[in-house]
Structure formats: structure tokens, C-alpha cells
């Protein structure tokens, strides 16, 4: 019997699933979505970074010039960079320290959960508490007053001064410490127990054990934690926005504020140029980090 083309086609179908190109079908939806929603529009963003916002005339690098000369942009970049370079080490360091302490305890799981808890709290919920803690009439001032660190009348509104920056840092650490601890603990425990045992037998103290045996193997974790903490540091915008609005105190003004405001004001040309810049920068940074830890790469 003559097989119709269709039947032949249908017959052929299973082979598609069996061929090496099957992956394509698995990947397609995601790739398509990513392309449509991110990659293609990003090209348009790049295009927009070279034209004016409304009339779409070609202006070359003018937008970039404007952006770089823009005071707000500089402030935002400065703050964001400052925030990153302050927070990451702090978080990573404190996380490491605490996880080391925890690793020796039985109640590790419970305490770990307690630290993880902040992750479950929605930003909006948290903001209210922050307001109660850190405003001029807040509890922090209350405690400081009681313990005599601060005099009555000198109570600052933490979120309206340069201290706002540290409020953000605190918020960030509070939220992400659990995350970090989990990662560190995983890293610590991934080091084979034999090694530690061997070291202990050799007479190493706990501390030596840690620094000589475990720590060198934590590089991979460090990379991951750094990357993820970096990722999460951008999320601190949520709290900042909810607490202080679109135009917070200078020290809190991050890149995200700037972008948000540009978006609201429809200054799309500046936004495009800045987005391209930041995007490129992040891309480079990540590639760089990747290169640095390349030997840990699995793929």
C-alpha cells in the first residue's frame, strides 16, 4: 500500500524525539520566551540609546554623554557600588562566621530555620516594622536612649539622613543571612568528613581544621554566594522604595530609583543608554567572575 506523505511524515515523527535534536523542542518554549521578552527588546533598547526619546532622531552617543554627566546617575552608581562593596563582604563574612558556629551545634536545623524565616516575609510587611524601628521616634532610638548612647534631643531620623544607607544594609543582611548560611553550611558539609577527621588526628585544632582544611574547599561556595548575594542586593530596592518612596535620602538613592523615575517620567532615551551601560557592565562582571572560577565550572 502506498503510504501517503502524511503517513510517512507521521511515521517519521518518533524519530524526531529520538534524534539528537530533541533538545530543541524542550528548549524552544523557554528560548522563544526569553528571546521575545528579553533579547529582542534589548536590541530595541540599544537602538533607543542612540535616539531621542520622543522624536526618535538619531543622536549618536549624546544620550550616553548625558547619562554619564547626569548627577543623579553618578550618585546612583556611587551608592549602588558602595552598597555592593559594603554589603557583600559583610554578608559573606558574617554568614561564614555564623555558619561555622552553627556547624558545630546540634540545633543547627532549628536555628537555620529561624534565620531563613526573614526570606518568607514580604517586603511590604517588613517595611512597617522598619518604620517603627528606624524613624526618629522609633525603637532603635528608644534603646539607644535607654542605654545612654544618644541624648534626648539628638535623636535622628535614620531614614532621612546618611544613616539610611546603613538601614538598607541592615535590611539586606537581615533578609539574606539565612540564604547565605544555608549555602555556607552546605559548602562546609560538602567537605568530606574524612578530611577533617584526618586533620584532627594529625593534631589540628578546630580553628586550624577550619582554616586549613575546610576553607580552601569553599571556593565554589564563595563564588555562588557572591553571585547570588549580588543578585539579591538589587532586590533591596523594594524595601527602599516602600520605606522612602521614589526620591529617598541621598545616601539611599540607588540605580533602581533612578531607572524607576526615568521610566515614570518617560525619559526613555536616558534609560536606554543607562540600561545598555549597566547591562554591559554586569555582563562583563559576571563573565569575569565566571572566568575566575572557571575551573569550578561543571559544564
Amino acid at each position: 500500500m502506498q503510504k501517503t506523505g502524511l503517513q510517512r511524515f507521521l511515521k517519521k515523527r518518533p524519530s524526531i524525539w529520538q534524534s539528537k535534536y530533541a533538545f530543541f523542542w524542550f528548549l524552544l518554549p523557554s528560548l522563544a520566551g526569553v528571546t521575545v521578552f528579553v533579547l529582542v527588546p534589548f536590541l530595541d533598547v540599544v537602538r533607543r540609546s542612540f535616539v531621542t526619546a520622543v522624536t526618535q532622531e538619531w543622536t549618536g552617543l549624546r544620550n550616553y554623554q548625558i547619562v554619564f554627566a547626569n548627577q543623579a546617575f553618578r550618585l546612583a552608581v556611587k551608592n549602588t557600588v558602595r552598597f555592593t562593596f559594603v554589603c557583600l563582604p559583610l554578608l559573606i563574612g558574617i554568614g561564614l562566621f555564623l555558619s561555622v558556629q552553627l556547624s558545630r551545634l546540634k540545633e543547627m536545623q532549628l536555628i537555620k530555620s529561624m534565620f531563613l524565616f526573614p526570606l518568607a516575609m514580604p517586603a511590604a510587611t517588613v517595611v512597617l516594622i522598619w518604620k517603627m524601628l528606624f524613624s526618629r521616634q522609633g525603637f532603635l532610638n528608644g534603646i539607644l536612649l535607654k542605654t545612654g548612647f544618644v541624648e534626648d534631643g539628638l535623636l535622628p531620623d535614620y531614614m532621612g539622613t546618611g544613616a539610611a544607607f546603613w538601614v538598607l544594609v541592615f535590611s539586606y543582611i537581615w533578609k539574606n543571612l539565612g540564604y547565605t548560611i544555608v549555602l555556607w553550611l552546605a559548602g562546609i558539609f560538602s567537605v568530606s568528613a574524612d578530611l577533617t577527621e584526618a586533620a584532627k588526628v594529625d593534631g589540628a585544632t578546630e580553628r586550624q581544621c577550619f582554616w586549613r582544611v575546610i576553607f580552601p574547599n569553599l571556593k565554589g561556595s564563595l563564588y555562588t554566594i557572591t553571585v547570588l548575594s549580588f543578585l539579591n542586593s538589587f532586590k533591596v530596592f523594594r524595601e527602599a522604595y516602600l520605606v522612602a518612596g521614589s526620591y529617598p535620602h541621598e545616601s539611599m538613592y540607588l540605580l533602581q530609583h533612578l531607572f524607576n523615575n526615568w521610566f515614570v517620567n518617560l525619559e526613555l532615551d536616558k534609560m536606554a543608554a543607562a540600561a545598555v551601560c549597566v547591562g554591559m557592565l554586569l555582563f562583563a562582571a559576571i563573565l569575569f567572575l565566571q572566568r575566575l572560577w572557571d575551573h569550578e565550572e561543571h559544564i
Partner: protein
Amino acid sequence: MMRKTIQKAAVKTALFLLGAVFCAPVLFLLSGSVMSRYELTENLRSLMTDGETLITWSFFPLYPTFEHYGRILFQTPQFFTVFWNSMKIVFCILAGQFVIAVPAAWAFAVYPFRFRKWLFTLYIVLMLMPFQVTMLSSYLVLDGLAIMDTHRAVILPAVFSTFPVFLVYRGFCDLPRGLIEAARIDGAGEWMIFVKLGLPLASGGILSAAVLGFLEYWSLIEQPLAFLEDQSLWPLSLYLPEISLEQVGYSFVASVITLIPAIFVFLSGREYLEQGIVASGLKE
């Protein structure tokens, strides 16, 4: 030995305390949500009127009352509108991610195709981009598709997020290769392998992605803020800040109720949460 025990005990206590401090905000919320209006005003008046005195708090309110709960639960349909909005958004996103991201992770994990490394790096980069950088591009697409100011504007971009791909990928990585090969030899189609073999074994990764995703999207703010104008579409996370300081009790209760699903998810998926975090981390 004694010293060590004491030391250990001290450390333990310290860590407990720290943990308690970390969980403290919840206590604030709980106690605040049952405080009567009068007490709340008393305690927080300074904050509301920007006065000079400090605010006070009592963790055991003098006149506990459920009036705020009553009001929110029984008299404020607006709350429920936003609540179901949030639910809808989150579940749609999670469902979508399941459909989109899991197969993609499978592709990355199992098939060594040509641009895999390159593409995967791209995915990582995209995963790490803060929203603001891609905000403009998203806006352009959404506007072009004319779905601005609908829930789809928030759901669609999130569905195609690359973070779950990453998480689930880790889960798939642990699959023994031999199993897959064997299945192939047995004549199973790739799809069958995926469904019958891959999914169950990587369920951990998938669930961790779900838990992390839920926690993330339950408090989503930036996207709805930027893309949703119609107030009736707002999620809970945007509604909460709208409650003014005048109605603090209300705000507390809303926060508590907002917390509940998150706590549910947290409690039930805690292990998966950890797994997910670890998976996103370890490269070994």
C-alpha cells in the same frame, strides 16, 4: 571540658538569641494585629504625627481585640480582591514556569548541544540582571503586545525567567547518565524519558524552584508597580503600603494575613528551600 561546654552553651544561646531577633518582626505583627485602635494610636502616635516623643510597644496588648481581623476579613472586599490577585499571579507564574523552565533545564542537562555552554552563560547573566535594566525592554514588548495593564504583563515575563531553569537544571544534573541511556536503548522516546524518568527524580529541584519562586513572587513589587495601573489588578504586595499610617491596626492584620501563605509554603517546603538554595550554589 567545662569551659568548652560553657563556651558551647554561650555560643548556642547567642545564636538562639540572634535567631529570635531575626524572627522578631513577626511578633510585632502578631501583637500589633490584635491591639485595639486606641492602644495603637497611643503607642504609635508619635510616629503618625511626627512628634517628639518615642513610640512605645507592648507585646502583650492591654486590650486585645480581633476587631481589625473582623474588619479586614468581613468588611473589606478590597483586601480580598488584591489577595486573589496575588494568588492568581503567583500560581500562574509558577505554573508557567513549570511548563517552560523544566523542559529547558532538561535540555541543558541531558543534551550536549553546540551552543550549550554559551547559552547557559547567557541564561545566568539574564538571571542576574536586576529588573530595572530589562524593565524598558519588557515595557516595549508588553506595550507592543498590548497587554500592558493586565495581569499577563506581570505573569508572562516572569514565566520566562531563567532562574528556575538554573535551579531545576541542578536537579537534573544528578541523574545518572546510565539510566537515560538504558531507557533510550529500550526504545523510549525522549518525551517519555523526560516525563517518566526525569520529572520524578528531579522533583526536589522542581519543588525548590516552586518554593523559592513563591516566596519571591508573593512579595513582587517592581513589576506590578511599573506595569499595572488599574488598581483592581494590584497584588497584595502593592496594596499593603497603601494603607496609611492612620489605620495601622488594619495594616498589621493585612501583613499577618499576607504572611500566612508565605509561612505555609515556607514550612512545607523548607527542605526543598534549602535544597534549592544549595542547588543554586554548589557546582560540584
